[in-house]
């Protein structure tokens, strides 16, 4: 009776050890990209993404951030977005599309010599705000711009 209990315990211990090993094995490809904030990129909603990325959903609205994006984007798959920020000591610039399933599109870590400017092209599921978030000197600033997305490309 006692002996069978012992073997049962041993068996379950071994089983859990294997599970841990498999878990660790599955995690190895991610360790290469340790800096990539997986949770922030998978976060639903702007507030969640902001909290995961910056530790707080709050940001100060700033007029020093200029977003260049079309008022009407005919093709939501390719929306050109340029962000110019005038703050000093910029640490990062992030781009969020508010209505996307996962709003965080991109986050740029700026080196010491980088100027406050990035430009790229993003995908947008539907009409929504494009939000630029700039982290400078430990503070978080943001600005947003409405972009209308027309699917079908007939204008609108």
């Amino acid at each position, binding site marked *: 009776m006692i002996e069978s209990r012992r073997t049962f315990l041993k068996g379950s211990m071994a089983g859990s050890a294997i599970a841990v090993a498999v878990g660790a094995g599955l995690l190895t490809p991610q360790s290469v990209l340790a800096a990539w904030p997986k949770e922030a990129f998978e976060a639903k909603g702007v507030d969640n993404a902001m909290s995961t990325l910056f530790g707080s959903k709050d940001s100060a609205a700033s007029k020093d951030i200029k977003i260049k994006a079309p008022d009407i984007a005919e093709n939501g798959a390719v929306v050109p977005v340029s962000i110019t920020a005038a703050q000093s000591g910029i640490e990062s610039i992030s781009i969020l599309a508010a209505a996307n399933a996962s709003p965080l599109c991109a986050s740029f*870590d700026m080196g010491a010599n980088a100027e406050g400017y990035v430009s790229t092209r993003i995908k947008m599921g539907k009409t929504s705000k494009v939000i630029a978030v700039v982290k400078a000197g430990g503070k978080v600033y943001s600005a947003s711009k409405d972009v209308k997305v027309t699917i079908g490309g007939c204008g609108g």
Partner: protein
Amino acid sequence: MAKGIKIRATAKKDSTTVKALMSHPMDTGLRKDKKTGKVIPAHFIQEVKCEHNGNAVLTALWGPAISKNPYLSFKFKGGNKGDSIKISWVDNKGESASQEAQIR
């Protein structure tokens, strides 16, 4: 050149503008293959590193919401004509590519 990166870097006074075009499908993992009806697995660039003479200038962390064949442009101070610009990316499947170019 399926995995090539096109780079244009131009120096103007003390500011250098770098423009780069990468070739990548950038699949979100949400789209379905029209023929088979199966979901195309997510396949997108996660990290792009930009170096000037070996010093990191900008690191872009990207999600699947970046457009297909991504475009990236940025500016930095202190570049001179002939300096090297290196751009390299890694995607979520561990594939990578890198390219070097000179500032013009």
